[in-house]
């Protein structure tokens, strides 16, 4: 029994575990504690199994396939195949799912009411199982099956606190949008199946199934279908509603891996499933990616609900991923296999990195919400003293997501930059200008992200608490800190040894059609490098070296500032003469005000200031400042759409207005019409 046989048994085993877990959870509904233990334990176990399988596949570079179930009734055989690409996503999933599950052990105890523990626990397992099947699916029906299951379970998890109309609305919006997406997928896949006469992905996505306009149509269908899940603008509106509504650990999963399901689809089908991409496809991806990145981070900047903020930043990162993918498609379109490999590697690398730090950030946010009872940044503050560990881990996550060196965010953005520059160097005509523009926009995005997370961390964790809840906050239990520590450590590790990741990705990209990863794409585990058309490499980076240099700088600073016998004097912060308290602190709203004003065109901010004065307006008792940004897409795209549909439906009411005579008239008309149609002698 070789290792691959064991691996082949892996996925079914994991699914069986999940199934058993779900059943057990359902059985233990009455006993919340046990229920929690079983659900999360089982989930960790299953994730461990799938992760192992994924790693085996990546290392061995050989795909594993098998049959999950045969659905006798419809004669459908549900088979799976773990290709290196699937394995990559499975690995990312496992890497996040395990810490999240562990975290949930502590989190659910506080945040989820006892009667609903079973629902959440079961939902979590169903969601993870569905995701695993989505990544491993090798056949249309099983893919759609898992895809739908994923949607439904997520919706259930979002609607857990269904007493609040917000989460009901979020769940519904999510359900509707993903269902429309699924519709596009069904159509697309079935057309492919019809064209190829087969249902299995290898045949379907062999790339020479459809041509001409059909191909374009399919590209659009699949882009819509997967784009909704990936949360790219303008298909994103569900995301900032749904992610915050779910329990934080679930939000972590949604942001970290649920969107990667969409990315997976985009890579598997749009980029590599329909044959060599058209130039315009690549351009479309780059455009959408850039748009999502910029708008995502801009919207994130103005949020004061910490989970909404993170959700918007998820949109931003999805944008970065899609940008890289688009560059890859463009390179493919021009036949630069090596460059394409670099770009795709960049985007896949960012999938991993984003999963890690976004998971970390959401877990941190969860702890904060649990400790303070609010998601409103304006009501937080001073948490670093009250929850030092959570604060530290959150800071690491914030720095990682801001693309600062020594952490993983920098690594993948670095590769993306490389891909963009090389793209400029090796594509003809005006098209090439997209690359430096994309680069510039990426730079802007990164810098804005830095601003955004200075704000997010600084306002919520530093200085004085702005509310009673924040003042009373306590550090979370160890079971919730350990997963965060793990993820934070991974941020650092992935940041210091990006080469290891890139080497793995070289194997993955090699398995994709048309990609020819250069060996010199990786240089050692410590760093990574790209290459140029010339012998000397285009650029390379070894973060560890920089780390060393910074250590030097730190020691020097320490040496320079240390003085014998000089005591540190603690004084109150100067409050401009007045006494300094939480109310005079700089608020999050104020922090993002300059950018709000500068990007007025995007935000279309509305503000109203009302002054409550008794004596004269010059001596106000109280000034109320309200400011809001316009939800452009919701207001101008989705609002009218929904209203239109409902209006049309309302119009149809007259058909069933209750008059029997009308009903009879339908039959009369039908009869007459058909008689006329049949006509006289043939």
């Amino acid at each position, binding site marked *: 029994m070789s290792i691959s046989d064991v691996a082949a048994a892996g996925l079914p085993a994991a699914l069986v575990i999940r199934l058993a877990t779900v059943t057990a959870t359902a059985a233990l509904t009455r006993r919340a504690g046990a229920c929690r233990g079983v659900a999360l334990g089982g989930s960790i176990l299953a994730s461990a199994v799938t992760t192992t399988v994924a790693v085996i596949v990546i290392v061995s570079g050989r795909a594993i396939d098998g049959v999950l179930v045969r659905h006798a009734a419809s004669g459908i055989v549900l088979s799976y195949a773990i290709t290196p690409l699937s394995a990559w996503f499975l690995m990312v999933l496992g890497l996040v799912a395990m810490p999240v599950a562990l975290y949930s052990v502590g989190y659910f105890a506080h945040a989820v009411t006892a009667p609903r523990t079973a629902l959440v626990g079961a939902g979590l397992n169903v969601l993870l199982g569905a995701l695993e099947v989505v990544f491993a699916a090798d056949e249309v029906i099983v893919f759609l099956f898992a895809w739908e299951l994923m949607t439904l379970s997520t919706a259930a998890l979002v609607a857990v606190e269904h007493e609040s109309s917000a989460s009901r609305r979020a769940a519904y919006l999510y359900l509707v949008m993903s269902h429309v997406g699924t519709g596009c997928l069904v159509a697309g896949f079935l057309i492919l199946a019809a064209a190829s006469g087969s249902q299995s992905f290898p045949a379907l996505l062999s790339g020479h199934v459809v041509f001409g306009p059909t191909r374009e149509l399919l590209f659009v269908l699949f882009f819509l279908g997967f784009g909704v899940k990936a949360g790219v603008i303008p298909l994103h509106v569900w995301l900032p509603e749904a992610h915050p509504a779910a329990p934080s650990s679930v939000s972590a999963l949604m942001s970290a891996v649920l969107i990667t399901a969409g990315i997976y689809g985009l890579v598997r089908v749009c980029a590599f499933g329909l044959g060599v991409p058209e130039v315009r496809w690549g351009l479309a991806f780059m455009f959408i990616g850039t748009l999502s990145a910029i708008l995502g981070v801009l919207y994130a900047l103005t949020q004061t609900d910490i989970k909404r903020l993170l959700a918007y930043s998820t949109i931003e990162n999805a944008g970065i991923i899609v940008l890289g993918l688009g560059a890859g498609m463009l390179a493919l379109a021009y036949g630069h296999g090596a460059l394409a490999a670099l770009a795709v590697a960049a985007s896949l690398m960012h999938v991993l990195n984003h999963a890690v730090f976004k998971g970390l950030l959401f877990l941190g946010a969860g702890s904060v919400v649990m400790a303070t009872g609010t998601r409103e940044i304006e009501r937080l503050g*001073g948490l*670093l003293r009250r929850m030092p560990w959570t604060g530290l881990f959150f800071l690491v996550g914030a*720095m990682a997501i801001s*693309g*600062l*060196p*020594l952490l993983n965010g920098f690594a993948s953005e670095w590769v993306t930059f490389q891909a963009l520059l090389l793209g*400029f*160097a090796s594509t003809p005509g*005006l098209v*090439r*200008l997209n690359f*430096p523009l994309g*680069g*510039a*926009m990426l*730079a*802007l995005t*990164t*810098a*804005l992200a*830095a*601003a955004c997370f*200075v704000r997010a961390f*600084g306002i919520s964790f*530093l*200085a004085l608490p702005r509310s009673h809840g924040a003042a009373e906050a306590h550090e979370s239990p160890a079971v919730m800190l350990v997963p965060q520590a793990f993820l934070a450590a991974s941020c650092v590790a992935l940041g210091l040894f990006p080469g290891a990741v890139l080497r793995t990705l070289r194997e993955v990209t090699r398995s994709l059609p048309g990609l020819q990863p250069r060996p010199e794409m990786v240089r050692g585990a410590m760093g990574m490098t790209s290459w*140029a058309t010339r012998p*000397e*490499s285009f*650029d*390379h*980076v*070894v*973060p560890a*070296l*920089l780390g060393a*240099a*910074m*250590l*030097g*700088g*730190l020691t020097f*600073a*320490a040496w*320079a*500032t240390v*003085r014998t016998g*000089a005591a540190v004097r603690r*004084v*109150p*912060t100067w409050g401009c003469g007045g006494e300094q308290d*939480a109310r005079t602190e*700089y608020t999050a709203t*104020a*922090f*993002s005000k300059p*950018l709000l*004003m*500068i990007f007025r065109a995007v935000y279309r901010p509305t503000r109203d200031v009302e002054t409550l004065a008794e004596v004269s307006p010059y001596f106000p008792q109280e000034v109320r400042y309200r400011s809001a940004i316009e939800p452009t897409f919701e207001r101008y795209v989705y609002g009218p759409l929904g209203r239109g549909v409902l209006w049309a439906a309302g119009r149809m009411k007259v058909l069933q207005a209750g008059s029997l005579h009308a009903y009879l008239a339908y039959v009369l008309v039908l009869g007459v019409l058909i008689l006329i149609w049949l006509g006289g002698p043939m």
Partner: protein
Amino acid sequence: MTDALYTVGLALLQSAGLLAAAPLLKTVIKKMKARLQNRQGPPILQGYRDLSKLLGKESVRSETASWVYVAGPRVYFAATVAATTLVPVLMAAAPLEAAGGILLLVGTLALGRFALATAALDTGSPFGGMGASRDMTIAALAEPALMLGLFTSALAAGSMNLGVLVRGLLQQGPSFHPSDFLALAGLFIILIAETGRIPVDNPATHLELTMIHEAMVLEYAGPDLALVEWASALKELLYMTLLVDLFMPAGIAMRAAPGAILVALLAWAGKVFVLAVAVTVAESTNAKLRLFRVPELVSISLGLAFLALAIRFL
């Protein structure tokens, strides 16, 4: 092994040298500015005196501040120092060019900025917040222009690694492509913006509503402040050196021969001085812009950089 030691030594030397030179640059600019305004201006060594004085003081910190407040200046300082090792100064090779190129440099500086801005929020003083907010805003706006400007020369030389880049430029010999001037102009604006000079920021004022960088570090005193000041000065020098490397590399030593180094040193000093003069002139001939006018300035530099790219490669 030996060359590892060599690298380390070189790195130490270069960073030490730049650290030593940085305060001088600041004072020189102050002095020239004063002269332009018919003032005496500070003595040439004033910068060093300030630093030693500040380092000599006891450190005074806010009660509300946490370790982040302490870490801020140190990380800022360390990042800037580390950045110096990525840039070729006298020799056509950066000591730590094995670590990475332009992107890493920019990232490192961003790291420093992140640390300082975060720390500024730690005291709870409205000034810290205001400064941090504005500083991050301007940095964010400057970033794309900076990148584009750097891309232009990087693509010209075929590498993002500064060492390779400078060597490449030197091999190509002095080229006077119009795009160079456009890119230079663009990056000069960024230099102004990033180093907090008029017309973007006014290093000399502590008028609460106009200051940006100063507001951010308003709460700092003693050694902490010294580190910040020193690092900022270093950063300015660094940017100037970067411009020098990219646009007027002539004179940089190709090999480690004493003579060549000496020449390079003089050349470098001269070029930096020219830039300093330019900065001084810009400072004394312009009025500080309102914060919301800064984007226009930056967008000009963005336009210049993109134009440079376009006319160079199309």
